[in-house]
């Protein structure tokens, strides 16, 4: 595509997203038609679920519906935990704490290893369930989420009897009863990130999955039961923000761990302040993704796609602010359009789907609000993906904006959707200062083939994870977490254990 054509399409795409624009026409030869390849294995879902407290299931009460965001069809009725039920769960965890923390560490490890194994054995069922409840493509839940969940338990299991090596010069002991509140974008993976290190360090837990994605966490409760985990060590309660608020203000927790929005994280910090409850927060991001002119451009374009469209962009570390060196901007934008047009948006259960359904109506509304803001503030939308969206469900065609100014809302606030803001820069110094010009500091990406430049930029970026010539890679041995307002504490790696021990 020539620069003239590019300028033309830039000018012609500020139309209604539902309308047909010149930008909608995919470049020739980049799209293949695939036959449908749906995952056909059926999983059983109970019509109603209670909470898993003290090794037992409560009777379902004051339920709400969890639906499949790709079809809007109800999946199950989920109980909303009251403050009294939160209290019951905390008491169960408290009662279990003594025996669990005093168990020989090797035995504790074996329970966690068992959980890891059962997750591997039931991985297909878990992947299908995850996709049904969250809307994420089956190829991601099957190849990324669930394998990482199993690996996370496996990695941490082995730490249980080796904690002395993790804290040289100090003696670790369990913190106690942990309250853990997790988001809906990686439902089971976030449960694993919270539970595995907590259990390995000898703590007991009350975990609340997100309101819209409780099913895999409830399945994990089944697995805990199945492997004979002592009652009360893991309690899983479901509910909405009110249950979360009841947890944040419950005096029985020795520690609170939260992953979610910065807004809610600040409320939890405030609630915990008076009691001095220990806290880890993994909050929002607006991560910069920097492409230098000496990068391998095709690989960088692939990285950009991975960075912003993985999991519908509903990723706290999404590379949502793209900084492209000025002299390659047109080239990168042109290549990005071709690649964006080839993404397959649709049925998450189809094994060929790249971008699935947005998790909820509320989230879709938020994304659409930002897309409208981007246009009204003067940025140019590139809405070139030709996928036909299903008639029911919550869908957002992946897109990107050019002509974005640092002051634009879409360049400053976390959208949590498949929407990329493209900005440019001239010098490395400018890239660093613009990249760091945000209250967030979760992740960052750098693309250049020059080694010394990578280390210089990586050192100067204020971010907890820096992906160089790659993006959105995760591993249980690799700590994850943010600088600045993206939170504190790490999850994963030896550093992640620190959040679940007291040191003497």
């Amino acid at each position: 595509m020539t620069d003239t054509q590019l300028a033309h399409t830039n000018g012609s795409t500020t139309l209604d997203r539902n309308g047909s624009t010149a930008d909608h026409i995919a470049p020739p030869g980049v799209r293949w038609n695939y036959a449908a390849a749906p995952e056909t294995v059926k999983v059983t879902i109970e019509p109603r679920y209670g909470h898993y407290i003290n090794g037992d299931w409560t009777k379902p009460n004051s339920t709400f519906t969890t639906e499949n965001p790709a079809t809007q069809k109800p999946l199950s009725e989920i109980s909303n935990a009251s403050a009294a039920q939160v209290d019951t769960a905390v008491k169960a965890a408290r009662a279990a704490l003594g025996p669990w923390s005093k168990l020989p560490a090797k035995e504790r490890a074996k329970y966690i290893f068992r959980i890891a194994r059962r997750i591997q054995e039931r991985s297909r069922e878990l992947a299908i369930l995850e996709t049904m409840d969250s809307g994420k493509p089956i190829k991601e839940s099957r190849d990324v989420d669930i394998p990482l969940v199993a690996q996370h338990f496996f990695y941490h299991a082995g730490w249980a009897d080796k904690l002395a090596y993790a804290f040289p010069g100090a003696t670790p002991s369990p913190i106690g009863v942990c309250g853990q509140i997790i988001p809906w974008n990686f439902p089971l993976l976030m449960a694993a990130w919270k539970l595995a290190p907590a259990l390995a360090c000898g703590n007991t837990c009350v975990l609340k999955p997100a309101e819209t994605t409780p099913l895999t966490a409830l399945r994990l409760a089944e697995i805990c039961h199945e492997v004979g985990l002592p009652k009360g060590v893991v309690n899983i309660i479901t509910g909405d923000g009110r249950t979360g608020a009841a947890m944040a203000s419950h005096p029985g927790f020795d520690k609170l761990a939260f992953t979610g929005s910065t807004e809610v994280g600040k409320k939890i910090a405030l609630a915990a302040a008076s009691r001095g409850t220990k806290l880890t927060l993994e909050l929002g991001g607006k991560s910069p993704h920097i492409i230098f002119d000496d990068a391998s451009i095709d690989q960088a374009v692939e990285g950009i796609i991975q960075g912003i469209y993985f999991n519908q962009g509903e990723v706290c570390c999404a590379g949502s602010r793209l900084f492209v060196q000025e002299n390659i901007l047109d080239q990168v934008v042109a290549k990005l359009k071709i690649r964006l047009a080839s993404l397959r948006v649709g049925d998450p259960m189809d094994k060929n789907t790249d971008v699935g359904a947005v998790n909820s109506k509320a989230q879709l509304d938020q994304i659409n609000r930002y897309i409208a803001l981007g246009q009204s503030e003067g940025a140019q939308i590139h809405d070139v993906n030709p996928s036909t969206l299903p008639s029911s469900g919550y869908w957002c065609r992946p897109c990107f904006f050019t002509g974005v100014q640092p002051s634009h809302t879409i360049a400053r606030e976390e959208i949590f959707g498949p929407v990329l803001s493209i900005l440019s820069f001239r010098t490395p110094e400018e890239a660093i200062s613009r990249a760091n010009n945000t209250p967030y500091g979760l992740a960052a990406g750098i693309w250049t083939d020059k080694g010394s430049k990578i280390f210089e930029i990586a050192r100067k970026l204020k971010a907890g994870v820096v992906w160089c010539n790659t993006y959105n890679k995760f591993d249980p041995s690799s700590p994850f977490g943010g600088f600045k307002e993206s939170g504190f504490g790490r999850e994963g790696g030896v550093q992640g254990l620190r959040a679940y021990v007291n040191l003497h």
Partner: protein
Amino acid sequence: MPTNTTTDRLDILKTYKLFIDGKFPRSESGRTTTILNSKGQPLAYTSRASRKDLREAVESARRAQATWASSTAYLRAQIIYRIAEMLEGRRAELIESIHSVAAPIAKSAKKSKSSGKSLTPAAEVAFSIDRLVHYAGWADKFSQVLGCNNPVAGPHYNFTVPEPTGVVAVIAPDQPPLLGLVSLLAPVICSGNATVLISSQTNPLPAVLLGEILATSDVPAGVVNILTGDHAELIPFIAGHRDIDAVHGAASGDSATTLRAGSAENIKRVVIRDSIEYTSSECESAWWIEPFVEMKTIWHPASA
């Protein structure tokens, strides 16, 4: 009028100022506090810092931080060791600064577990110097203890390095006025943070002396800024300041709650030290450095 007992000469009562950006300004508020000696007579005057002074100090720390962090760890180690050397050379003066106002403090200190009650001024100065030497030695080692390579399951080279958090407010305990301050300060600056230090309220003299020592040391201007004043007045401003990244503070009760609530403002890292026995070796640990560093994990493909 207090007079020197050995001669008839009238003492010069010094008015100590704040230490901001390597300079010694008065409080913009014009307020001072009278420091009494053990007999209840005026010994000196200190500046009572205001919210605006705090803001100036934070700006100074922010300006100084990046350069301090990017200096080599070996250089930071030597500079902190140099502070210890300079304290050693001014032991007598430091002992006098603790001793001269020590008596009225002892009564109130009995209530607190962290009184350092059997600590003589001479021992306190010795502990303080040794603590600085301890942390001087950490500057070029802590990242080897707290960071590591990570064996990720894939063709990537992956490692984690600790980096300084940024601007840290250090709130010294009232007692012991020098050792408490040094114990909270040293682990923060050795990793490359810049600080705004609030001195002991009841005996700010060792802190102001430290400021005078730092001014002629190799510590770059702005890395340590020292304010004297009223803790209850300054703590809410510290908690609410959006450009303070972390707090290492001796506090309890409502002050501690106020500081922790500051987390809700800008996700500050808040570490409260209460009931610390400052002479104990628990104050000498890489785990006192760890709360004021941010773990950065870097990924790079390791296959062509």
